[in-house]
């Protein structure tokens, strides 16, 4: 990477993710970068963004410097419009009230499938990961934005295990599996912004982050990437974005 930067990889993720949101949307957010990004968007240009949390929260405004350690803690209910049961908040996804799901990821593949369950054979796993939480439900029932670290071992051709479904094996395989709604919309990393081809459902580069080359993205990806005809260059984080982000996570729980 050529130029000096005044921001870290952990900071650009929530900032670029926040830019994907539109005011008035209903967004189901996971803990960490998603929660941070959604809250950042509320503070910047989406004051009427409605954030849902798995713990059973509708329309919260998380307090700067008091980010919840999980989406099941009381801090998530700060200034919420409604608190309800965990199953009931998930059923809102199934009924269709949610515009966008927003998660982190450990391992993703060319079709946007996410693995957070097993490294290696599930019968005798090399590593037992924490599992899906609400991830499978969210990605099964609505459109998804995933924000994650960009490493070759994390961007693989096929995930070891489909915990949270993207487009499964591409084409119509998602709908054919009984998931007619939703699907992967965007993947945000410290290197680029990705979308998915309308037909093949394979991941493709929509925009490069400032100072990042095509080669750099491909070299850090475990499968051959498609590139859009017109590759945009993402605007770098603004001073405002960085200032508000750092206020929000003043404890530096997630952007350290």
């Amino acid at each position, binding site marked *: 990477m050529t130029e000096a930067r005044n921001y870290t990889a952990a900071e650009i993720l929530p900032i670029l993710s926040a830019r994907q949101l539109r005011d008035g949307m209903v967004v189901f957010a996971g803990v960490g970068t998603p929660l941070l990004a959604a809250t950042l968007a509320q503070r910047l240009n989406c004051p009427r963004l409605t954030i849902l949390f798995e713990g059973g929260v509708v329309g919260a405004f998380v307090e700067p410097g008091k980010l919840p*350690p999980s989406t*099941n*803690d009381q801090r*998530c209910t700060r200034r919420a419009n409604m608190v309800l049961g965990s*199953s009931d908040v998930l*059923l809102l996804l199934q009924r269709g009230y949610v515009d966008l799901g927003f998660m982190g990821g450990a391992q993703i593949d060319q079709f946007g499938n996410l693995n957070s369950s097993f490294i290696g054979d599930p019968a005798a796993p090399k*590593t037992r990961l924490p599992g*899906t*939480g609400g991830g499978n439900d969210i990605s*099964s029932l609505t459109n998804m934005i995933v924000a994650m670290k960009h490493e070759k071992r994390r961007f693989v051709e096929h995930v070891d295990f489909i915990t949270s479904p993207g487009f499964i094996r591409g084409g119509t395989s998602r709908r054919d599996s009984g998931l007619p709604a939703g699907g992967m919309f965007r993947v945000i990393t410290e290197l680029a912004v990705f979308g998915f081809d309308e037909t093949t459902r394979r991941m493709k580069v929509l925009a490069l982050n400032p100072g990042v080359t095509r080669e750099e993205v491909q070299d850090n990806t475990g499968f051959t990437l498609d590139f859009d005809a017109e590759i945009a260059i993402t605007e770098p984080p603004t001073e405002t974005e960085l200032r508000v982000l750092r206020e929000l996570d003043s404890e530096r729980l997630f952007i350290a």
Partner: protein
Amino acid sequence: MHEAQVEPYDRLREKMAGRDRSLREKVMSLEEAGSFVQDGMKVGVGGSTMSRTPMAMIWQLIRQKRKNLSCSRAIVSTDGDLLFGSGVSDHIITSWFAQGILWGLSKVLRHHVEKEGKNYEEWSHMGVGMRFRAGGMGVPFLPMRAMLGSDVLGQRPEGKQIDCPFTGERLLLVPALNPDVALIHVQRCDAYGNAQIDGLQFMDIDLALAADRVILTTERIVSNDQIRRAPDQTKIPFFCVDAVVEVPYGSAPHECYGLYEPMMKHMEAYVKQVNADPIEGMQAYLDKYFHGPKSWNDYLALIGLEELLEASQRGRSIYND
């Protein structure tokens, strides 16, 4: 050994008919309540992650050295570490299992699943919720639209895919889960077990209705008059409840909505210790905090007044607006 089988309706009704559902006081000690839980039982655990965890009851079961419990919970945090690490449970049904997002993977989970062959049975969050809800409704299954197409479902032959008889759509039917006993911690209830829950309910109401027995631990016991003055605030009716135990700070070091937030110094020291050595580190933690203390209050004293007060200050701040 702990295969998910749906309770036949006759059996479910037979068990229920045998319960004393009369309006009666049922206040007792942790020790007495602990006797409701027998080796090999299916135990439903209330709360989620670090919130309203029935820690005092888990503490009691570990002290009583229960064995082969099959535990189910919305989302599992350090309570799962303790259940596996202490040997009381060899099977945990949930959708997410780690100490907390802040601390990455649980070395305790990893050790017991990867090395000791213990069973972490993974469903989607909604899958766990619909299993409790079906159990609480007295139906053998509920239909849902998640988990389809994933390897999570691939690992769960207990779930059945059908073509909807009304629409022809692909659906997943998840089997009812009726725990033998549920452990639930609440902010307040009366001596009969009428419980009020402030803030996040998680899956506790479905769990209370689904279980064949419910042990309620509570921060405080209030009068039945107080309950009857606001009947629309009662979340769990007394006839679901078989034991009431008053245990202040009963979720420590986890949080209880509106009363105290997680005790983070204690949590971080715990995580550091058990992830450094999931066997020795865990044993040392259990010896010091679970087997050592004479009483629950002694356990709280070990966590420390400083942490309790600080957690309480943060806890009640939710009502400062």
